[in-house]
């Protein structure tokens, strides 16, 4: 158990957050290696199906990050996304997902430090939640 490392899937928007992650790398900022990044054109592209699919595959944590509201490359993608994520998170928590598994942030392409810090926060929160045990689909559990 002590050598378990959380696996976190991060959906980063191409224009801001992914750029921020890239800048963090180029700047040699240290952050935990538990993040697996999936680049999306916009945080508004993130469909709740993706988040559910990620949970079903056994990810311990999910992190979605986009541009700051008002700065979306596509003008309003993240504004729609904000409402989507609010309701999604609310329903996920209501139906029993452990707190600390689902994270959202606005990180611009210049905010390398924020990216590294948020990554650290997310990893620690997921580590505290423990390995994912529920909502995982491996083999169909049928008689």
């Amino acid at each position, binding site marked *: 158990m002590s050598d378990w490392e959380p696996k976190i899937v991060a959906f980063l928007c191409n224009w801001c957050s992914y750029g921020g992650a890239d800048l963090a790398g180029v700047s040699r900022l240290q952050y935990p290696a538990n993040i697996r990044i999936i680049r999306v054109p916009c945080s508004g592209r993130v469909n709740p199906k993706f988040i559910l699919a990620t949970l079903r595959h056994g990810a311990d944590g999910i992190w979605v990050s986009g541009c700051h509201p008002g700065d979306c490359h596509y003008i309003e993608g993240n504004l729609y996304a904000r409402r989507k994520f609010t309701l999604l998170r609310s329903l996920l928590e209501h139906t029993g997902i452990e707190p600390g598994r689902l994270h*959202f942030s606005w990180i611009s392409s210049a905010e390398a430090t924020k990216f590294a810090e948020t990554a650290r926060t997310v990893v620690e929160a997921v580590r505290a939640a423990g390995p994912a045990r*529920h909502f995982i689909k491996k083999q*169909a559990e049928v008689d």
Partner: protein
Amino acid sequence: MRAYTEKIREAAKRLFAEKRVDAVIGFRKGTVPFMNEPFLAKDVDQVDQLYWDSNCGVNLANYLPKRTDRVAIVAKGCDSRNIVVQLLENQIKREQLVILGAPCRGMIDRRRIAAELKGKEALQTNEAGGKILVAGRDFETALDREAFLQENCAICIHRNPVIYDELVGDLVPEQENVDRYADVRQVEAMSPEERRQYFDTLIAPCIRCYACRNACPACYCPTCFVDEAAPQWVGKTTDPTDTRTFHFLRAYHLAGRCTDCGACERACPVAIKVRQFTKKLEKDVKELYGYEVGLSLDQRPPLDTYQPGDPEPFIK
């Protein structure tokens, strides 16, 4: 509500005579107690089959999306709000519809009655003076109507249709001081582990028949996410994770679109209280965005719009 039958038939006859509609969507009397069958009257000869009573819980707006003809439709409060949603979502045009508004005092929940009868079978039923009269093989009883309404009807605050061309009954007083979210708060008070167990138990009997989805007037996607194969988001077995995914995502797709008409719970063959998923989102949408579904043709649904100052307390 029996007088509605006469009014519905009269309106239908008149609309056919005036050639204002190609068909009338209503109900005809069911073949088993506490059920009525949705019915499409296509000409004036079929009008006398139209019928209305307190067992008309099916949401007739379910039959509207993608219709190309002109129809009259009998719509209760909830049904009319679903029509508003369908109009907002371009599933039907206002010009196609003649809405016969039916102010509703709540529909009877046949499962509650079955539970009350404890295994005895109801063979006949009638309604008089606020009482439901039930007769079976060797018993007869009168039940208080108010105590056997569908769960969503008991807490309904939109009994009168919000959009209509004519009414088939007088407007009824709306219920006041109704706590719509007692059950949601009960779950909110649970720990994550308890919540998970609660929902696991809730959907355990699910046989993935999709009656809930198909009965819902807001579920009209040509390809439902459960049928998407590349990639496949949900398996087709009754695996608990798959079943959970189905109910969760269906409820999520109804965020800001569900009118709590109860058609889903009514349709479920194994009596799952699927509204436990959608009620939470209804509460959220109300508290976060001040929106109630289906009340206005001038307001976009909450996920179709945004405000610069939308709350985001959890976003880092």
